[in-house]
């Protein structure tokens, strides 16, 4: 075991994957010599050579397409999109191509690809470095969306994603690259060093892509979320004293409906939360499915916490980002309903 932050854990996953399988290679804007603007690919070019970790031109569609072609040839490319906000030029190659090639070729070609991208808000990134565009991709058959919330899961999920035979959009919550975040803008910076999930094995292991995790057991209300907000929900539960059960989804598609419904049937109350603008965000899918599966166990309406239906603001970030107080208010409101 070693102490790692999420960046180091992701770097370690790539290192292990490249060491074990010569078909794994990675590329992206600034991902080669420099090792990525967030340093996730640091040292890999030096260790594995120019043709296994390299810089790509600033053309996200071409980066995705290069991965499509390489995967069809039998490689396992890991493509980096520098910020999730920049993934849209690649959307045709992801949505119309890599996600459908297995299906439209009836299995003659497969797409073992990971598209990694730093994701989410909380870093004062303004409207072009803060987006949470996961719902665009959870809507697409044929790709899976994975979002870890800590270093241990980040490494295990990335290794599982690289070993998967299907394309995976792997979003990395950049606000918690260096430490968990309790959702209070003025709070002290935290580190992964003292967090149990900052203990990361140095070698190979995987975390199951089809499983959510109950990260806090409780009886009063179920909070279903992922990424940075997992830590905000945990902090809100501690601060409010409301005995919330917190579920970290980890994989959004396919999401682990069993773990969710087991919990909601137990607590009878549910909050679903995401950073993205509320309308059509992934919490809408969760709320719809939970009411279908758990309606007769629910004692209150399912409550949604989400970003507002505005572009992500810069100066007023903390009025937009779903912080600790919004979770506390929601937990109170949902548990007070008779």
């Amino acid at each position: 075991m070693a102490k790692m932050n999420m960046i180091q854990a992701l770097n370690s996953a790539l290192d292990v994957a490249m060491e074990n399988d010569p078909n794994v290679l990675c590329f992206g804007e600034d991902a080669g010599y420099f090792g990525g603007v967030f340093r996730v690919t640091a040292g890999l070019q030096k260790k594995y050579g120019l043709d296994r970790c390299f810089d790509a031109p600033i053309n996200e569609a071409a980066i995705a397409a290069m991965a499509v072609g390489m995967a069809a040839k039998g490689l396992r490319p890991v493509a980096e999109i520098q910020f999730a906000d920049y993934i849209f030029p690649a959307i045709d190659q992801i949505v119309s191509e890599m996600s459908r090639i297995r299906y439209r070729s009836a299995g003659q070609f497969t797409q073992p690809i990971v598209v990694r991208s730093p994701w989410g808000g909380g870093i004062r990134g303004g409207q072009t470095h803060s987006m949470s565009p996961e719902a665009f991709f959870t809507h697409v058959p044929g790709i899976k969306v994975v979002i870890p919330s800590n270093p241990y899961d980040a490494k295990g999920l990335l290794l599982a994603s690289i070993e998967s035979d299907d394309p995976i959009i792997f979003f990395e919550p950049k606000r918690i690259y260096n430490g968990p975040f309790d959702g209070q803008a003025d709070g002290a910076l935290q580190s992964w060093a003292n967090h149990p999930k900052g203990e990361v094995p140095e070698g190979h292991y995987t975390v199951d892509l089809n499983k959510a995790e109950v990260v806090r057991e409780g009886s009063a209300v179920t909070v279903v979320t992922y990424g940075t907000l997992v830590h905000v929900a945990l902090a809100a539960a501690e601060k409010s004293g409301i005995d919330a059960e917190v579920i970290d989804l980890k994989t959004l598609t396919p999401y682990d409906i069993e773990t969710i419904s087991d919990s909601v049937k137990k607590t009878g109350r549910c909050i679903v939360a995401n950073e993205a603008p509320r309308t059509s965000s992934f919490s809408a899918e969760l709320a719809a499915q939970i009411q279908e599966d758990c309606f007769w166990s629910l004692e209150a309406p399912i409550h949604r916490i989400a970003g507002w239906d505005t572009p992500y603001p810069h100066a007023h970030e903390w009025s937009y980002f779903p912080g600790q107080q919004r979770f506390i208010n929601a937990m109170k409101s949902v548990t007070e309903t008779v």
Partner: protein
Amino acid sequence: MATSQPRYRVPAPKFRPGDEPDFSDLKLQPAGEAKRPGIDCSWKDTVDHATGLVGALDHNHQAVGEWNPELDPDTLREGLRHMVLTRVYDERMQKLQRQGKMSFYMKSTGEEAVSVAAAMALRDSDMVFPSYRQQGILFARGRDIVDMMCHCISNSRDNLKGRQLPVHYTWAEGNFFSISGNLGTQFPQAVGWAMGARYKNEDQVTASWIGDGTTAEGDFHGALTLASTYRAPVIFNVVNNQWAISTFQGIAQGDAPSLAVKGLGYGLPSIRVDGNDFLAVYAATKWAADRARAGHGATLLELYTYRAAAHSTSDDPSGYRPKEEATKWPLGDPIERLKNHLIGLEEWDEQRHEAMEAELNDLVVKSYKEAESYGTLHDGPLSPVPSIFEDVTADTDWRLIRQRQDLGV
């Protein structure tokens, strides 16, 4: 009614329905004139080629100049056969579509050399990323005709389980990638595949095809950037058949003097080729493949041709171009030209040609009878309904299991 002068230029084709098409001011370089640079050349050595025209068959149907591939008569006859088969197949499938036997069809009439000659110049192990008008590659590579038809009529033996529109073939065994339908996406994918081949120390090259209109897509520019940067073994074919559905090629080309010149800006040798000249297409493709295989990188070929048929069975060209354009096209018809070349060599004659057409027509009719015995889109049997839930991902998750139950299959 618009009466004022347009406030910006919107290019228009020279001829519209009712006009008499006249291509006499199209300045085309005569066959045999273009030089053949070494395969290790730079983009600078092809500046003239990018606006010229590489041709090997002259007006007298003689093979001339440095781009004559000097093919033996058997190879020429084989090429002729594949082109005639492509045309006979297209004609038959179009008729069957009109009879309601399939949902949609796209002919490649007039463009048979573009696909057949290229496929013959490549190795069968080379990977192709075609668009929807290169069915000639499948004939040149010997794909079973019944299998092709079973795909087009979406029956129980369609190797794509009824998931793709007709003519959007996939044939992995024949190193033929899955045709998308979203335009140009295959161009940068071909680069990724080519890099993969280099990475695995294999000597395959890739070839991809798009149309003139698709040169406006971002993927065209992304592909050329990638190929130039990583010196990938790729052949980029731009089939300039003059028409993107109803839009003439000037809407994509703008003020560029040709489509081939666009490759020069990326540092890629770029050549305009007479796409109706079997010998020229063969020679240019072979040259580009030799370059790629030797590690000199990618080539852009603009295949100058004319789309003699409609874009698809859903299109009616009489609404936007004169009917006579195809017959007035100055570069003629690829089948007629190769046939006349072989006749000039005394290696072919009209009787043998007619006999071959009849034989291939019988083959296509017979093949369709067999294909139909496995079902049609209209009457079935199709691939089983539950197959719509297969191949989405390697595993089937709870959502699809529930949805299949909802459908009741």
